[in-house]
C-alpha cells in the first residue's frame, strides 16, 4: 500500500490541453473519486497515474518514489477497466492468476492466492468458467479480483460501475466499499456519476477542462461547493446572481438574501442553494429570523415516488425545490408560493 502524489502535472494532446497543472494528494488507504464530465481530463489523469501515458511535465509519486517515467508494467498498480477487459481465452482462474504468473510466483502460492481473491469477491467455485459464461456483475468481480490478487500498491478503477444496471450497481457499490476496506488498498476511481462519487469515496476531486476545481470529503463538497459548476455537477443547485451590498446578496429585482457569512467582497456574486434545503411555506407561517424568504410562481410538480419535485419561476430565473412526499402540501401549478430557507444554506460560489 502506498500514497500517491500528483504534483503540477501537465498533459497536452496536440492543441488540446487535457491536464493543466493538476496537483492532488491521495492518502494511503484512502478511497478517492475523480469526478468530472467527459473531456474533463479525469481518465487522462488516471492513465498518467497508471503509466499508460506520461505527463509532459510534473511529478507523480507512488509511495514516495518518482514513477512518472516508469511504464505501467513496472509500477505495480492494479487496474480495473470499464468493460472489465477479461481475457476471453482464459478461465476465471487463469485471468486472476495472470498477475501472479508474470511475477513468477510458485504454483502452489498462485493457487492459494487466487482462491483467497475469488473468496473475497464471493466467486469461489467459478474457477473453470470462461468470461462469456459469466453475468456482468460476476465479470466485474473477476476483474476486481484480478486487479488486487498480486497486492498492488494502488488500485485504479475506470468508471467501475457504469456498465451495470441500476440494481446491480447499488449492490456492487456496497461490495466495492467492503472489499476496499478489507484490503485497505489506496483506491482511485474515475466516474462521471456524482452519486457514485459521493457514496463510495471518502474524498472527491472535481475536475473540469483539465483542472482540479475542488477537493474534499463528499459532505464538504456537497454542503460547501466552491464553484457554480461544482454545485450543479454534484447534485442539484439553484443559482442566484446578484451583487454584494452591505454583506448581503441583492438580486436584480430588489430582493435581498442573507448568506452563510456576510459577504466580504463587493461586485457581482453568485450564490447556490440546494433544492432540498428550500421549503414551500404557507403565507401566514412564522419564519425564523435567520431565514431568506422569496416569492415564486409554481410552474410544474413532478411526482417521483418518495419525493416531489417542484419547478418554479421567479422573473426569468427558474428554481427547483425538492420535498419529501409526506410533507408535501396540496399545491396547484400557476399558484404563487412563498419559499423559505436558512441563510446558512445560501453558499456564495464562483460563477
Amino acid at each position: 500500500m502506498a500514497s500517491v502524489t500528483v504534483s503540477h502535472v501537465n498533459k497536452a494532446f496536440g492543441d488540446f490541453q487535457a491536464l493543466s497543472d493538476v496537483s492532488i494528494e491521495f492518502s494511503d488507504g484512502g478511497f478517492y473519486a475523480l469526478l468530472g464530465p467527459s473531456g474533463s481530463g479525469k481518465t487522462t489523469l488516471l492513465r498518467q497515474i497508471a503509466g499508460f501515458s506520461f505527463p509532459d511535465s510534473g511529478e507523480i509519486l507512488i509511495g514516495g518514489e518518482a514513477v512518472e517515467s516508469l511504464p505501467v508494467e513496472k509500477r505495480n498498480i492494479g487496474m480495473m477497466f470499464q468493460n472489465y477487459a477479461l481475457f476471453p481465452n482464459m478461465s476465471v482462474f487463469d485471468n486472476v492468476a495472470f498477475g501472479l504468473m508474470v511475477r513468477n510466483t510458485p504454483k502452489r502460492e498462485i493457487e492459494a492466492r487466487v482462491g483467497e481473491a475469488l473468496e473475497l469477491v464471493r466467486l469461489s467455485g467459478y474457477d473453470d468458467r470462461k468470461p462469456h459464461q459469466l453475468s456482468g456483475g460476476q465479470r466485474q468481480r473477476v476483474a476486481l479480483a484480478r486487479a488486487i490478487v498480486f497486492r498492488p500498491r494502488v488500485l485504479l478503477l475506470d468508471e467501475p460501475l457504469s456498465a451495470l444496471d441500476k440494481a446491480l450497481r447499488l449492490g456492487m457499490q456496497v461490495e466495492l466499499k467492503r472489499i476496499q476496506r478489507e484490503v485497505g488498498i489506496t483506491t482511485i476511481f474515475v466516474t462521471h456519476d456524482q452519486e457514485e462519487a459521493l457514496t463510495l469515496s471518502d474524498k472527491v476531486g472535481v475536475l473540469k477542462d483539465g483542472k482540479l476545481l475542488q477537493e474534499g470529503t463528499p459532505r464538504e463538497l456537497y454542503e460547501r461547493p466552491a464553484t457554480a459548476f461544482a454545485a450543479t455537477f454534484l447534485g442539484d443547485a439553484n443559482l442566484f446572481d446578484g451583487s454584494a451590498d452591505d454583506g448581503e446578496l441583492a438580486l436584480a429585482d430588489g430582493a435581498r438574501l442573507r448568506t452563510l457569512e456576510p459577504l466580504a467582497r463587493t461586485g457581482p456574486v453568485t450564490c447556490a442553494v440546494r433544492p432540498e434545503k428550500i421549503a414551500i411555506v404557507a403565507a401566514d407561517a412564522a419564519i425564523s429570523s435567520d431565514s431568506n424568504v422569496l416569492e415564486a410562481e409554481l410552474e410544474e410538480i413532478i411526482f417521483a415516488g418518495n419525493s416531489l419535485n417542484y419547478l418554479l419561476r421567479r422573473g426569468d430565473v427558474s428554481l427547483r425545490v425538492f420535498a419529501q412526499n409526506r410533507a408535501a402540501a396540496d399545491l396547484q401549478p400557476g399558484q404563487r408560493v412563498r419559499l423559505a430557507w436558512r441563510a446558512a444554506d445560501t453558499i456564495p460560489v464562483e460563477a
Partner: protein
Amino acid sequence: MAVSDTTTAPMNHRRPSNARSILALTGPAYLWLVVTVLLPLAAMFYFSFLSDVPLAARDWHATLANYAAFFQQDFYRTLMWRSLRLGFEVALWCFVIGFPCAYVLAKTIKGRWREALFLMVIIPFWSNALIRVFSWTMVLRGNGILERFLDWLIPGFGSLDLMFTYAAVVIGLVHSYLPYMILTCYISLSTIDDDLIDAARSMGASRLTVLRRIILPLSMPGIVAGAVLIFVPVIGSFMEPRILGGREGTFLGTVIEDQFTAVFNWPLGAALSFILLACVMIIFAIFQPILRRAS
C-alpha cells in the same frame, strides 16, 4: 382476404411455391458448382483409374497402376515431401513477415496511412501473376537488381545469383501469398480489444508476455486461416517453381502439370492430384483438434 389468410387452405397453397422459390434462387448456384467443379472432378477421378487417356484411337482399360506408381517409386514420395515442405516453409515465412505487418496495421496506424499501407498489401493481387513472377527473375538473377543493390549498399559484396534455386521459389511464392496472411491476421487482430493489452500490462506483463499470452492466442484463428489459404495452393503450385526454380523447381505440382501438358499421361496426373488432395485432407484431419481450438 385477411381472414382467409389465417385458415389452413391458403397456407397449404403457399408452401409449394415457397419451395419453388428456394429452388429457383439456389438452383443456378448449385447447377454451376456441379457442372464446373464436381463433374470435371468426377471425370478426373475416373481417369485416374485408367491405363491411358480414353480416346478412340487408344487402347485403355481400368487399373490401379497410377496409384501404385506413387507408392512404388521413391521419386514421387520425395516430391510429395518437397511439396509439403515448400507449403510449410512458405506459410511460415508469410507468418513471420505478415504477422508484424498486420499487427502494425491493426493496432498502431490509424486513418489515412492505414488505407495507403493496405493498398500496398493488396496491389500484388491486382497484377498478373505471370508478370509478377517474371519480374522476380530480373531481381534474382546474377547481376540482377538484388545483386546490384546489395553491391551498392555493401561495396565489394560479390555476386549473388539466386535464380533457379529453392530460395527463389520460396521468395516468389511468399510474395504471391503474403497478402492472404496479412489480411486474415489483420482481421483477427483488429477484433482484439486494446483494453486487453492495457490490462495485461497493468498486471505487470512485459511486451513479450502480452504477445505470447494474449495477442497470439487471440489471433490464432486468423493465423490458421491464413496458413491454410497459403498451404493448400502452394503444395500444388507449378508456375512459380517452374519459372523461378528451373531444374531445382521440381515439385509434385510441376510433375502433375507435366503429365497433363507435356507427357499427355492424364491418368497418372489425375492419380497424383488425388493423392495430393488426400494428403491435404489427412493433414487437416490430424490437425483438426488444434484448428478447432484456434477458431
